[in-house]
């Protein structure tokens, strides 16, 4: 079911983009968490936007390269000229996509935990206003929960992109559809955030994006909404991965 040599090839051909996105994300996180002037924006700009925008760029490029790009270029012919089932190809790429996102968030979470241990910020600052009447500091547990919530939404984004990659034989359609999906998701999330910050009318955009299921505010305020909302991206990811596998197994390949 799982092909290690194919997995290694996926690692090799996607290492550069994974490394740069993970690097940028970790650096931004450290910067927002460590500098006093940006600490109050940590959850607005970094966790509000960057943890979806940056992984979205990664999944958009990578998902296409994992399947549709190889079919389009013809190099999938070499992979499929070996005794490997098509389902093993999709399964391996699904594992790569999921694991690489987990690792990406693991790296950035560890960076944040390290900074937070050295320079803790108050919960009030994390919520955007140091004068808010809330007690206590931002805890390691909260950081873990926020990142877990963001990770799951990004896995769902990646799964949908991989689904398009498995459905289409040409890169332009795969990238096109994935681009529309991730673009709409990420932009609507930003507009919805402006709505939450007080621009009236924009809050309706939260219904257009699966990023709504990523709820960092609920983690900070200590309720369990974030955990319940994680069910939806998980279901979306499973469904998209299944469609990807089934369509790719059945279809004719122009190799």
């Amino acid at each position: 079911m799982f092909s290690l040599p194919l997995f290694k090839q996926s690692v090799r051909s996607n290492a550069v983009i994974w490394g740069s996105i993970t690097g940028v994300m970790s650096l931004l996180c450290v910067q927002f968490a460590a500098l006093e002037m940006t600490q109050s924006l940590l959850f607005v700009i970094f966790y509000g936007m960057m943890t979806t925008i940056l992984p979205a760029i990664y999944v958009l490029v990578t998902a296409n390269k994992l399947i549709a790009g190889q079919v389009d270029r013809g190099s999938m012919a070499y992979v499929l000229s070996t005794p490997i089932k098509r389902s093993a190809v999709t399964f391996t790429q699904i594992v790569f996509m999921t694991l690489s996102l987990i690792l990406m968030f693991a790296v950035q979470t560890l960076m944040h935990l390290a900074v937070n241990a050295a320079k803790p910020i108050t919960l009030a600052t994390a919520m955007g206003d140091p004068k808010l009447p809330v007690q206590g500091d931002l805890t390691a547990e909260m950081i873990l929960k926020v990142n877990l919530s963001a990770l799951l939404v990004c896995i769902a984004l990646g799964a949908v992109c991989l689904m398009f990659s498995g459905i289409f034989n040409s890169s332009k359609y795969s990238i096109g559809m994935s681009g529309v999906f991730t673009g709409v998701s990420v932009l609507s999330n930003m507009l919805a955030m402006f709505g939450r910050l007080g621009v009236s009318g924009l809050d309706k955009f939260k219904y257009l994006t699966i990023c709504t299921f990523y709820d960092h505010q609920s983690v900070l305020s200590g309720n369990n909404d974030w955990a319940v909302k994680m069910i939806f991206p998980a279901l979306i990811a499973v469904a998209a991965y299944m469609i990807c596998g089934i369509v790719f197994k059945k279809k004719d390949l122009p190799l």
Partner: protein
Amino acid sequence: MSTINVEKLTKDYGHGRGVFYVSFGVEKGETLGFLGPNGAGKSTTMRHLMGFSSPQSGKAEINGLDSTAKHHEILKSVGYLPGEVALPDGLTGRQFIKMMRDMRRSEKNDRTDELLERFRLDPDCGVKRMSIGEKRKLAVVTAFMSDPDILLLDEPTSGLDPVMQEEFISFIREEKQRGKTILLSSHIFSEVEALCDRIAIIKEGRLISTVAAADVKHGLKNRFTIEFETQSDYERFIGSGLCPEQGDKSVKKCIISVPDKDTNRFLAALSVCRLKSLTEHSVTLEEYFMHFYRNEKRFKVGGVQYA
């Protein structure tokens, strides 16, 4: 049961493209040449045998197993050389070879070094930097390294320089002697002529005929222009029972096609005539098929007709 078996394979891509009711078999140890113009359906048929596409009707089988459903079983004993060279990103030649070897999980003797040596390929540079010929060599190495029993070669020598084409042809000839079953698609006549036991001819998606290569070669005629010294020499020759295609007594010239089997009769008839000149126009396999390419309706197995 043929090792490779294609039965009434049909796949219509619309606009008259695709393959229609294609049937042929390749026996164990046999080499079948698959000859036809661009877009005739050679690669499409190969694709079905590789399980990349599933047939609309009919079937494609290797070793008695269905190519679509059982491709992962079949491909354990198949080496495939794709018609287009598009190698995966970001690997060096050696990494690509290693990846393919790991994916094949081959238990047979590894022939990589021998093949690299033979085709003079340096695998340590990036695939992106390689020329088309080098990529093709790399594909050849990966197709043959696990020593598969069945070979599907889709225009294998395109992109190779003449020296390497020769090398490749002699390599395939050795493989043939080792008992490999080979399906070779090509439109290079010399390649087909040098390697194949039988030749299947496909045009516009339909298999027109399958002929034994030896019959084709035997059926070829040599064509001569003969100029006689006197009109009586001309008449003696005409009277010998051979039928010239064109002849003119007044200029004492005739043009005649001689099949191999009539060579002795032809020489005997000539021996009693006095000639001014004798010019030979031999017909190669290439001309034989070129003729068919242009005018398939007049095509007859084992003979050449001139329009």
